[in-house]
């Protein structure tokens, strides 16, 4: 595993290469769940990808830096992912929980660089059950992080208006230049996921089928 340090404003992000590529030129970028971090090895769910596999630590998570005084939003996670895309070039993106939400946002906001987004179950932005697992308790006894207690507290309750996620799905579908650019692998149905599933171009899939389809796109 090799790590690159990237600047995002006053934050330093860790971007790790989990595996060198063979066959598929385009890299796969992994975005972790709320409170998580980049895995140390390629997760079994995406082992079928033929190219390089990279994983990002969001701001306040893993080996990325922890800023003072909080102020997190899902949009900052989206911008973290964009900083990784500036380094890697066009990529297929896989996200879990908060990472799935960030994957949808970046697919809509940088459609030229996201060649397919795969959305999987995980904690954050309503994923991980209605209580969000232990996230609400962790700030109380995990004061230094990572993960930053502020990111757990702030992104466990990040308010989103109805229709917001669908705007990003629409952008991705109209501008990505590939068919059905959003693949939903998740079994859970947070409200934003229910909302985008009715949008043409957002499809249910298995991880393997989505990886094969996006590798060929």
């Amino acid at each position: 595993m090799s790590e690159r340090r990237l600047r995002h404003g006053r934050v330093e992000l860790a971007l790790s290469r989990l595996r060198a590529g063979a066959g598929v030129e385009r890299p796969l970028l992994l975005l972790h769940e709320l409170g998580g971090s980049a895995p140390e090895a390629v997760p079994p769910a995406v082992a079928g990808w033929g190219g390089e596999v990279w994983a990002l630590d969001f701001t306040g998570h893993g080996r990325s830096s922890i800023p003072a005084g909080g102020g997190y939003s899902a949009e900052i996670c989206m911008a973290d992912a964009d900083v990784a895309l500036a380094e890697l070039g066009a990529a297929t993106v896989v996200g879990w929980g908060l990472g799935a939400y960030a994957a949808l946002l970046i697919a809509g906001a940088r459609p030229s660089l996201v060649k397919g987004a795969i959305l999987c179950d995980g904690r954050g932005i309503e994923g991980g059950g209605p209580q969000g697992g232990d996230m609400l308790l962790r700030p109380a006894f995990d004061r230094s992080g990572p993960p930053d207690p502020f990111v757990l507290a702030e992104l466990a309750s990040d308010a989103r208006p109805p229709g917001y996620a669908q705007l990003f799905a629409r952008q991705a579908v109209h501008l990505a230049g590939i068919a059905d650019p959003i693949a939903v692998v998740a079994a859970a149905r947070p409200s934003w996921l229910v909302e985008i599933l009715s949008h043409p171009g957002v499809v249910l899939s298995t991880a393997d089928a989505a990886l094969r389809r996006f590798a060929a796109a």
Partner: protein
Amino acid sequence: MSEIVALDEATRHGAFPGALAPERRRSVESHGVRLAVVEWGSAASPPLLLAHGGSDFARTFDVFAPLLAAAGYRVVSWDHRGHGDSDSAALYSWEADVRDALAVLEATSKEPLPLVGHSKGAGLLLDLALFFPQRVTRLVSLDGLPSTRRRSRRDLSKEERVAGRAEMLERWLDHRRRAHDVKRRPGTIEELARRRGEMNPRLPFEWLCYLVTAGARQDADGWRWKLDPALRMGGFGPWRPGWILEQLPTLEVPMLGLVSRIVEPMGWGSASTELQPYLAPSSIVEDIEDLGHFLHIEAPERIARRVLEFLGEPGQARPARGGP
């Protein structure tokens, strides 16, 4: 001659009728972010918390705050994170600004006190009044209440909307990519005042020049606003002004809202008739027909008089709390 004028620029613009620099300065730490706090009036007087709007400074109150101080208040204000003499932060959000406001409140008084805010500052203080009603006697919102009307984009085709949104999102992401090395554009005091005048068209040029001397710093290549260049006005995000309206019916703290009826770039375009259905029984909203968004700068004496009338005698206890 021109050299003499240049040397004298700060002195020439460093005064404005009625403006008084704060009498005391201190700093408050909010979870690792240092906030610059200023005060007008006797340190022994009952405190009042004053909050500025977006892209503004505590010293935007250099004329208004002394009027409240003269009525017997210790007027306390602070520069929001990334603004004025406060630290720039890595991240900015509404919640973080509310936490910062709470840190200043905590460091100012354990007793309930009145809150007065302008624009974004009024919104932040509204949240404090909603979350901690026991810490607040009364709340004044100076053109800080939203409009219920949505800006119509029905004249655009779907393709135009998608293209427009794509451009906006890419511009925001491009800004984030280079946020670590962007700098504000330098200029003379008058150039900065003219630029700000485009967003604040009703304010006197002399006032804007004065504000530069308080809200900007002088570098070797010119003056720059003390606003973190990583901050970006406008753009997009999940926040909706209507969320403020939905909170208003639960407000226990008596509120006076003054809303400007003059449409201008930084205004909300709200009106008392629209807000009325959302108001708690102890809230009052009044239309100000002849003043713009910066009503306390356009007519400081008149606005201060109305605010002081609503607040009553300094140090007055909080009215008895009833249900919303």
